[in-house]
């Protein structure tokens, strides 16, 4: 695989862009300023560099992210709870909320293959009022964590902490 790949950026205007019109010279010249002493050069986009990891990184080196969540209610009190992650989570909990009150957190079974970046985790459980429950998903990994709300009150509850809807 590639060695550490670096790009020294080319920040110029491309040919499809219209260059700004030159600023006209002022008719009356301002009082000349004293010549600046030698100082730091203002950085330009041309000074930027981008890098891609030196080959693919292991899942546990990725920041853990929630890619998707889903709840399937069977109408008889049973539910399937699923969350898909990127990275290597070590602990996943989902908390049911009803009428703005948190219930007992449930722990999901870790799924997926150890070498995979994408992993699907799930739990079959019994849930009271499954269709009207709002869920707070919390995923923890070695150094990072992620959080998401889903369900009917997700937008209302999400601002109550730093966990996005």
């Amino acid at each position, binding site marked *: 695989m590639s060695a550490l790949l670096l790009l020294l950026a080319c920040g110029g205007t491309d040919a499809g862009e219209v260059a700004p019109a030159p600023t006209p010279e002022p008719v009356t010249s301002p009082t000349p300023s004293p010549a600046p002493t030698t100082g730091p050069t203002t950085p330009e*986009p041309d000074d930027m560099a981008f890098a*891609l990891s030196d080959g693919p990184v292991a899942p546990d080196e990725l*920041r853990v992210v929630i*890619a998707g969540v889903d709840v399937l209610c069977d109408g008889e009190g049973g539910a399937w709870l699923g969350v898909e992650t990127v990275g290597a989570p070590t602990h996943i909990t989902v908390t049911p909320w009803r009428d703005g009150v948190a219930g007992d957190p449930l722990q999901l079974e870790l799924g997926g293959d150890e070498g*995979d970046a994408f992993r699907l985790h799930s739990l079959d459980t019994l849930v009271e009022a499954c269709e009207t429950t709002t869920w707070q998903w919390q995923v923890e990994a070695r150094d990072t964590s992620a959080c998401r709300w889903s369900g009917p009150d997700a937008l209302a509850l999400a601002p109550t902490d730093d966990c996005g809807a």
Partner: protein
Amino acid sequence: MTVSVALLIASAFGQSAGDFTTIQGPLLAPSSLSWGDQTTIGSPAVLQRAVSFFGTQHVTVIFYETRIGPATTACPAGEWGIGVAWSLNNGGVVDFGEVVLPTADTYYSCVAAHPSVVSLGSDTWAVYFKAEQDTTSCDPLTSPWGCDRYSGVGRFSIQYTGGGGNLFLFDYSDPDGNPVLQQVAQDMGYPSVMYNDGQFRMAFAQNPDIYTMSSPFTGFPAAAPPELAIASGSGSGVPSWNEDELHSPSIYCDTAGSGRIAVGGRDFASFPTLAEQSVGMYTSSDLATWSEGAWPYLQYTVDGYEVRHLDMTTSGAGAGHGLWFTAPDPADGVNKLFLARTAAFNRRDIDDKRCP
């Protein structure tokens, strides 16, 4: 790298003021790659990240496919891999090399091609690709995805990990060990994915038509089968611009709950000789039924580009459209990367294919 305007032929393109007004390029040519057999570049897939460096700068990351080796008995389509290139703001496109190579004993032992990228939020993206494998050495006992040549769709992730000083970093993963969409049949290709209204939505070509499917997960578990979205031969005109084949769909957001598919169409005089190749547009207000739109089109016989792969992007929350495409360069016939843009398209403000 020199980026030049190849053409400025606004009047040739189409039907309204919103149409493409400029084609830029070639932005990237195979001769500038440091890997592969340097004969072709195809199938662009674009993401953008804004970074702070004395103001806001925008880095555009462009995945592409290229050929590594010729057709063999083991790999009838040849060997193909996926690379990545970069562009800052409105600047040139610079290749960074390969990220996925055909690998023995995997479902992509011959081909990793047709990349597509979708945002997962949190500075993370999923990159999908079409896979083909060597069936002559496939062991069904160690290949749970089976031994069909067309093994499914691979995926890997890329993350922006931050910057320090003037250096900005992205990490990427290996492809997962098993493909997704193993249930998709032969001749499937060009997967394209957006996230819309709580679901990942994939469009892909199943020669000669376009199918879509949706899932809350990037893995598209097999619960819901793909559905025919657009049938070839359904476009306007006599014969229709997509008379014989639809190819390379690019699905993207309109607003939450509605979307668009830009797609290539072919009309063969006598296969494989083209009478026409076009880029058309379909819209949907429910993401289930798709209607042909009147905007925009590129036409081979009018505009000079036989578009083989495309990725439609928007900027400014849909205000502008930028069509990244690969086509034989009219100057030398070599497949290269181009960008067709509407007047409002802003390369410094490319939207994620995610709504909301």
